[in-house]
């Protein structure tokens, strides 16, 4: 039950972050190049991603031994989780600029507005931009859904959580239109990064042959330790940065 809830939360959070990024690109394309091309490009990307999942998912379940899957998946989750956590901590402490969806949106709009439009109703630039945006961000979602879902044995839960994130963020996008910057992306990235690192350590270890004390309950212990370290890292880096700024040059 512990793993099931953590898997659902991790997938929902990760998919929400990726959805915000994809939606920013689709909206920039829709507003500047026309909605028909943007929506068609997004729809084709979703179809391609679905075919990819249908082809890769069952093959992984049937042909790859669970311990190999957990070792590889654990390693991938650790890499991805540590990258997210690093980025989120550096942003939270001010060492890196926050991911500003508003600025990205403005930049995309400016870039797309300057390009000539094709004569007919369908716009190739808008189509390709939306397709690439949704496909690339969607690939990360698929990676997370497949890796977390297959390793835990809760692929159904992971898929439902991902679908819920797509619906929720999509609805927010439609309702608030260009206000995606209101979504607390860095906080979500920090939380998801923590969970990915936790699952990565747990399954990577299990794949390598480690037997965790308390089985699934060890996930909570790992999460608590990593959360405490992350909190300490944000506090320390914030203080270091403040001291550095206060020092006379």
């Amino acid at each position: 039950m512990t793993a099931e809830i953590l898997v659902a939360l991790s997938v929902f959070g990760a998919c929400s972050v990726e959805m915000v990024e994809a939606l920013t690109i689709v909206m920039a394309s829709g507003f500047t190049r026309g909605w028909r091309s943007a929506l068609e490009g997004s729809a084709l990307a979703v179809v391609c991603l679905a075919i990819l999942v249908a082809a890769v998912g069952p093959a992984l379940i049937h042909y790859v031994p669970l311990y190999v899957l957990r070792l590889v998946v654990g390693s991938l989750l650790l890499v991805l989780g540590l990258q997210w956590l690093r980025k989120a901590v550096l942003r939270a402490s001010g060492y890196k600029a926050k991911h500003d969806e508003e600025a990205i949106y403005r930049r995309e709009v400016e870039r797309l507005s300057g390009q000539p439009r094709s004569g007919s109703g369908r716009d190739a630039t808008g189509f390709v931009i939306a397709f690439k945006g949704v496909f690339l961000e969607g690939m990360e979602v698929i990676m997370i859904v497949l890796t977390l879902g297959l390793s835990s044995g809760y692929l159904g839960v992971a898929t439902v959580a991902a679908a819920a994130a797509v619906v929720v963020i999509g609805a927010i996008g439609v309702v608030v239109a260009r206000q995606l910057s209101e979504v607390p992306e860095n906080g979500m990235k920090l939380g998801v990064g923590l969970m990915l690192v936790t699952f990565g350590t747990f399954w990577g270890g299990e794949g390598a042959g480690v037997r965790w004390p308390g089985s699934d309950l060890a996930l909570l212990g790992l999460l608590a330790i990593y959360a405490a370290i992350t909190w300490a890292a944000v506090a320390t880096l914030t203080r270091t940065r403040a001291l550095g700024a206060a020092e006379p040059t």
Partner: protein
Amino acid sequence: MTVQRLLVSFGRFWWDFIVGDTPEIAVGVACLMVVGWFLARGLSAAAVVVLPVAVIALLVASLYRGMRSA
């Protein structure tokens, strides 16, 4: 030509995804799994402690690198 371009893009995607601008994390995790594998064969109890500690060390090292390059 198109197949070659597709393969290059595919390879580039995975390189960016796994290595990107944090090669220390990719290399560190690979080493960690090898160490975990050997520890689990003889010293499983030690692996339970070593793995999380090594993950924390990796995060701290990567943060230090990120802080220096900021």
